[in-house]
């Protein structure tokens, strides 16, 4: 049965790609006295409501959207999570 699935896409800078925003957050945390923060990577969360026949179909369709538009695989990694319920 087709229904609407809530899908989260988490996009983060790829490993090895410099993330100046994350690095600035890390330094600011250090200035506030938070010791021991070794790394901060800043990405974005994109929440979609996707109509599909099941969670796997929702995931497959979202992954296709990621490859084409939502993420740029040259500089970004993404993780798709279909939220149950």
């Amino acid at each position: 049965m087709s229904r609407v699935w809530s899908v989260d896409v988490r996009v983060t800078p790829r490993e090895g790609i410099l993330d100046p925003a994350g690095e600035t957050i890390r330094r600011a945390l250090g200035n506030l006295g938070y010791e021991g923060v070794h790394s901060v990577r800043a990405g974005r969360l994109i929440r979609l409501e996707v109509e599909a026949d099941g969670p796997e179909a929702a995931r497959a369709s979202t992954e296709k959207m990621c490859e084409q538009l939502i993420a740029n695989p040259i500089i970004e990694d993404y993780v798709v999570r279909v939220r149950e319920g």
Partner: protein
Amino acid sequence: MTAGMKVGIVRFPGSNCDADVYRAVTEGLGESATYLWHKSTDLEGVDVVVLPGGFSYGDYLRAGAIARFSPIMGEVIDFARAGGLTLGICNGFQVLCEAHLLPGALVRNRHLRFRCHDVGLRVENAATPFTTAYSEGDLLHIPIAHGEGQFVAEAATLDELEAEDRVIFRYVDRRGEATDAANPNGSARNIAGIMNHEGNILGLMPHPERHSLAVLGNTDGLAVFQSLLASVLRARGCRSDPPRAEAPEFAVGAVAGASS
């Protein structure tokens, strides 16, 4: 006024350097130019396509990511893949990378600040359809205006760009050296502009059109457009031969030499 070249300038919602390119072509060169609306699917027989600077679609998601799927871009991609001369400036460079017509990507400036000032550029390859009116090693003063101009690519891609002389412009200091201090955004290897393997697509972050008329105080950028005109005329003399990065048979106009 000659009718040697017709330049098509794509207008996306948020383009803001379209009129600058128009004036560089019409007033700087005396050639013809036309605007191409992003919803159009007709390139109107232009010889050259320019994707101008600006903030297409508000830079939402990633700079150039949404513009890349505009209706006109289907035509632009076909045109470019068939060997048509295609120039992407600033946001246009970002669109070309998002469309995979050029390798790599442009990400947030390393220092996170928007930079709007003149930079020193060195012409690394003067045997391209975009640079024949320069000489290799020429030093130029050209403005930049961007927040996401840091060029990044895999090391293997960077090596390939260098090996094939496809790094066309590099950020340099007054002495022509590619130092860290001369790099305004943290771009890999001080890269300011690159070309595709076939040699008909150029993307660069600096704005040659903003230094293309005497009234603007500097004409260092005009030779990009002069070079395009020379390439179009040369290709017309031999239509079966697609534009290629070869040694120029003739150069047009004065070389923009010493920086002011």
